């Protein structure tokens, strides 16, 4: 009996040791915006986007709707780049659809306006009825050392399935939706009241 038990233990240990790890899923975000009629003035520069807490991490974050105060991190889902960088790229791309001279964090040239954004939420909210991608960011426009405009933008989008592609698509949609609302406000010079 004893050798059998030892054999079983050995086989179980070997199985546990040889079991492969989980395959990580790295998700890419490529926000795109419909081209518009860019105007020459004013010029913009987008500052590096700061991220609050875990929103800035490469590990996919999610919140259970039953425990909204607890942020969890996925074991195998990762972003290709920090979400704050994706947002910065989206802000540059979005502004370029309406304004001719827009530079990003990699080329911080002097401009008429400086866009300073902070990513507040970038997470999945899981609920028994379905999951949603959520984004929220605060943005301030600075001109000649003074804040001239501040607003908050957020968006949500249902996540169709558990696949990485579906999750990435939902987050890409929310970034595009929120940034498009921001760009629209900049173009008309007004601040829409945030829905979040």
């Amino acid at each position, binding site marked *: 009996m004893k050798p059998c038990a030892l054999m079983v233990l050995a086989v179980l240990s070997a199985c546990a040791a040889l079991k492969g790890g989980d395959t990580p899923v790295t998700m890419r975000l490529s926000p795109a915006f419909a081209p518009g009629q860019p105007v020459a003035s004013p010029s913009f520069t987008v*500052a*590096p986007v*700061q991220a609050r807490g875990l929103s*800035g*991490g*490469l*590990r*996919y974050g*999610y919140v259970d709707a039953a425990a909204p105060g607890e942020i*969890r*991190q*996925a*074991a*195998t*889902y990762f972003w290709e780049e920090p979400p704050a960088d994706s947002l910065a790229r989206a802000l540059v791309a979005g502004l370029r659809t309406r304004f001719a001279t827009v530079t990003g*964090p*990699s*080329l*911080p*040239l*002097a401009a008429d306006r400086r866009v300073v954004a902070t990513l507040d939420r970038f997470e*999945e909210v*899981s609920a*028994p*009825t*379905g*999951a949603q991608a959520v984004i929220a960011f605060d943005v301030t426009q600075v001109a000649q*050392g003074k804040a001239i405009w501040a607003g908050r933008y957020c968006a949500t989008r*249902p*996540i*169709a*399935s*558990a696949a990485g592609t579906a999750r990435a698509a939902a987050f890409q949609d929310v970034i595009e939706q929120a940034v498009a609302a921001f760009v629209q406000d900049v173009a008309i010079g007004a601040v829409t009241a945030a829905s979040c």
Partner: protein
Amino acid sequence: MTPDSATQIRWGLAAALLAVAVVAILALVPDPFFRQQAIATTLDDVEGVSPGVQVYFRGAPVGAVRSVDLNRRNRTFAVEMGIDRNWQPSACSFATVASANPLTAPRIELVALETAAAQCVAARRAYGCDPVPAGRDGAMLTGCRRPADLFETAALAIGEAANVARTANAMAQTLSGLLQGDGTGGAGDMVQVARNATQTLAALNNLSTRLDHSFTPGRGDIAVTLSHVRQATGRASEIDVAALNGILRETRALVAQNQASIAGILAEGKSSAGEVRTILEGASASLVATSANLERTSSSLGALSERLAGDPTFAIRGQRYADPPPPGGQK
């Protein structure tokens, strides 16, 4: 014919004494068959190395430490090693201590770089060896200072970032003065100053990126590098994260000031300083990225310190993660 008993006793005693002498020589003389050569080095921190600890060369054991003596004049250690006679140092060789971790003992590594003696200083530095000045004890082999661990490196990098930001600001102000003056004199010098600052920034940015990665919970080297575990638990409690954050705040303010100065200079559009403009644009972007990376490093350092204070095994075990449930319970 059998010898008499007195002769037998004399021969017996002689044989016993000879055996004791042979055993004593074998046990007490470090290299009784002269297979080794004695090589001395000077170290500033032996990190647990003591007589008997093995010496390795490119993964192979080639000898052992014979003695470790503290030099009371300069507080360094004279380490004598018995090394295989077949091992010969190259024109650029040095000794370094490989730190202990929970699974391995400390050991000394001999490194022989195949470079000419003239390039040795640069090659040694590229390898990460900061040589300990040899005392008067006739050390034959250069010893390396104990490399800074991640925590020390992070603290130094954050301090250095503040210095670089200050230098960049001074540089921008000087350049501004030059451009507002005659516009030509000294611009060449400034190109050199700016280029040097850019190189420093690039190195710092590289370091800060590595640090940012290293301290990222669950993904960074710190979670898997066992050699840091022993140091991590002790060092984490010594780091004054609040002070580092203070320095970072100052750095952020300096970076903002730097951005404004550079933006002002670039807006002036003096064509004589075309190269300087290009370099400044790069330096400015690099400084911003460095600042952001260091800020994340400081934040991760703080989180890690808190974790390790509560659970010292966290550095080995890492953190448990679970994927989110499928939307709506579907598969």
